[in-house]
């Protein structure tokens, strides 16, 4: 149970405060309700580029990082398809410095030309380092547009291609800021050994006079039901063939969400899992093989991915994955096996609560999804999943016509 108090400022900023008396550190987590799904298809990667620009100085403060380091703080940020999240940890005495910095960049950025030029280059290097200059790095650049025909999840947060980043203009940066970076589009979460009332006063002092914006709660174009299997085959300079199968799954608030997560655990979490025992050890088809969910807010993907052992054909690997799916459809999982993955979730959730930053981030993101209270319901939601749910979901969702498959072939293996 993570206890918290919730406040809302007049300008719409939501504040969550969690007290943790065991630590001298404070976590400050600021979540903006904007991600890659809010981008225009002609300007992808922008939310992430913008995240970088948030560190290039604000209206009254030329450097974000330096004053924070000067009070013992450390920070970072990430962009997903749904949100952009900024987080800081610092000694509790220094809290106000974090609020000063965060509020100034919520008020107005410096919009420096040099900042834009440099961060554009940095993001291009990030694109190369993580997606282009890595074996299998371009998988999601290929798979997303295969699985999504309409929804903006069809591009990854880094963007569809480097050109979109190269041509982003300062006017677009400004428009993006005033459209999305407003107090009524954000959740601020503060966790540490603090008095909630005092935290609220400080937050009002620094954030209270930031004007609210007009937030366009846009409806994202939703996918139509997939009726036919899709596939794409590519050949790359990699040592092993790889296969990626993506099935559509429901949104984050759907009653079946936690069951999907447990199914992925049944299949591949740990060495006792089905995939490891049967496909890696038993049949020795895969070098590694995983099932996982993305955790997207809108309807997302349930993924099966694996690198094939040398000499194994793509057909044999795919047949083995489909056989495992069929087994879920035809036979009820045993109570013991389901309990195993629930037990692992129980300890994972408990360990996650040992970090003040994890708790702040969890509360804030839950509030953006729907309500901070979600973090306190998770354990029961996993617990409520039944054997029959696993079977029903496998039957309803894991059908060949709802699947997109990427065959990622090794040039070397082909020879």
């Amino acid at each position, binding site marked *: 149970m993570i206890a918290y108090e919730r406040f809302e400022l007049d300008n719409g900023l939501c504040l969550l405060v969690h007290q943790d008396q065991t630590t001298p550190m404070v976590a400050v987590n600021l979540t903006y309700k904007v991600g890659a799904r809010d981008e225009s298809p002609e300007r992808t990667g922008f939310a992430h580029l913008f995240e970088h620009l948030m560190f290039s100085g604000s209206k009254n403060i030329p450097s974000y990082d330096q004053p924070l380091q000067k009070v013992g703080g450390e920070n970072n940020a990430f962009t997903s398809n749904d949100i952009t999240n900024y987080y800081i940890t610092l000694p509790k005495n220094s809290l106000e410095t974090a609020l000063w910095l965060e509020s100034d960049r919520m008020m107005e950025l410096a919009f420096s030309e040099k900042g834009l030029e*440099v961060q554009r*280059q940095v993001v291009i290097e990030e694109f190369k380092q993580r997606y282009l200059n890595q074996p299998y790095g371009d998988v999601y650049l290929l798979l997303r547009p295969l699985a999504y025909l309409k929804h903006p999840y069809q591009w990854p947060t880094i963007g569809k291609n480097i050109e979109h980043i190269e041509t982003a203009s300062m006017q677009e940066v400004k428009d993006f800021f005033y459209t999305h970076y407003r107090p009524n589009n954000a959740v601020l979460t503060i966790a540490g050994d603090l008095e909630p009332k005092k935290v609220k006063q400080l937050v009002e002092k620094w954030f209270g006079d930031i004007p609210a914006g007009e937030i366009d709660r846009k409806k994202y174009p939703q996918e139509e039901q997939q009726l036919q299997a899709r596939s794409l085959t590519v050949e790359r300079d990699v040592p092993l063939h790889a296969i990626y199968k993506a099935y559509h799954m429901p949104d984050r608030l759907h009653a079946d969400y936690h069951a999907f997560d447990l199914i992925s655990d049944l299949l591949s979490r740990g060495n006792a899992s089905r995939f490891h025992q049967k496909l890696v050890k038993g049949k020795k088809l895969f070098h590694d093989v995983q099932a996982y969910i993305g955790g997207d807010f809108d309807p997302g993907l349930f993924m099966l991915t694996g690198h094939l052992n040398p000499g194994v054909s793509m057909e044999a690997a795919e047949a083995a994955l489909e056989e495992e799916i069929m087994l879920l459809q035809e036979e009820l999982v045993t109570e013991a096996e389901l309990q195993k993955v629930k037990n692992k979730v129980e300890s994972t959730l408990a360990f996650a609560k040992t970090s003040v930053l994890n708790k702040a981030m969890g509360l804030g993101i839950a509030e953006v999804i729907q309500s901070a209270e979600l973090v306190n319901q998770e354990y029961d939601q996993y617990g409520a999943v039944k054997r029959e749910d696993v079977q029903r979901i496998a039957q309803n969702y894991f059908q060949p016509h709802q699947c997109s498959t990427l065959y990622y072939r090794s040039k070397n293996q082909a020879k």
Partner: protein
Amino acid sequence: MNRSLAPEISLMESFDYLKAERLAQIKQLPVYYIGGSEEAVVKMELLFDAGYRYQKKALQASAVNALLVEGSKGKSAKAIAEFFENRGAFLDTSLHADYASVQLHCLSRQIGELLPYLLELLQTVTFPEEELEDWLNRKKQKYAINQEKVSYLAKNAFVDAFFGAGHPYNNAVNAESFDTLTQADLFAFYEQQYQKKPFTVLLSGQLSEGKLKSTAQHLEQYDFGAASQAKLTFPELKANKELLQVEKAGATQSAIKMGKPMPNKGHADFPALFFANTILGGYFGSRLMNNLREDKGYTYGVGSGLIAYKGLAYFVLSTEIGAQHTQPALNEIEKEMLRLTQEPLDADELETVKQYLQGSLMRNFDGPFAAMDRFKSLHVLGLDYDYYDQLIHDFKGMTAKRLLQIFQRYFQFNDLTKVVAGKIS
């Protein structure tokens, strides 16, 4: 309200860090505990004197460590995995230069059942042939995948060049390393470094008095002999003055790796070296990050650090740079290092790094798990908390003058072994 002025805050002058306490009731084994978790979870880590520095053959130490929990008398790898996973526990192994580790994460209520099982595993290893073969195959494929990564190529080449052939800390591998290891090699290493040898036990999280007591009782039943007396000598490291290049056709980025030997933790200069490294490349606001990333946009990131093993310590700097910027980046790194040997730090930067390091220490000691990791880093080097007291003391009193001397003495670009992996133009 003037938003251009930082709010006045009172910085914390000092902080009390969580210390590990040695449990008195266990005579044969060093067992340490840090409590204080509000969650009923525990992490138990066992440290064996079995790092790769003791191995006679590439991958020997690593294979033994990984396969410790992949088969024991009467128990298959699958049965072992199921035992832990059914109880929601996570069992992992990891190998380091000096020591090998087995880690158990579990709910506190499970430790009484898991610990005796784990201890039995460790004493009845079987290293099944099939598990070894599978492990080697997976490693070999992983190696093939890594050959496509410039960062890996640079790291492997650096380690090989820096330490030289046959050095105990040279753990570089090549394509043949995966074909010669046998089950007999595993047993030989196990007998030499694990069997009946004392190990260190680190417990952190939440354990009641009763649970601590029963944990101690289980540990007392382990069958110990004397610690291994193997003394290793370390060959002198030879400096490589020339830039080593590893070709990777078509790479859009080059990986740069460079480093040199440094005095170790416990040496009087170490706190100042640590401080100096932070300025150069040890945090987001470092000189190298400011230059290569925030000013020029050559890279997504650059960093440097000090790596301390029991026998030696060294400085290492790494980055991945847009292929066309490789030479300019090398020039800038040289320039930044030279500048630090010539111009004393201004008061503002000195103060920033002081405060950053104090905050960073607090962060690194935050909670029983983090605090135990700090203790571990000392313990494996044979150091105690005096190291941190000295570090905190020296950080507070650091001066620009002292740093200038440190940079001049220890941070000469020409002393670095340098490797670039990427497209050679």
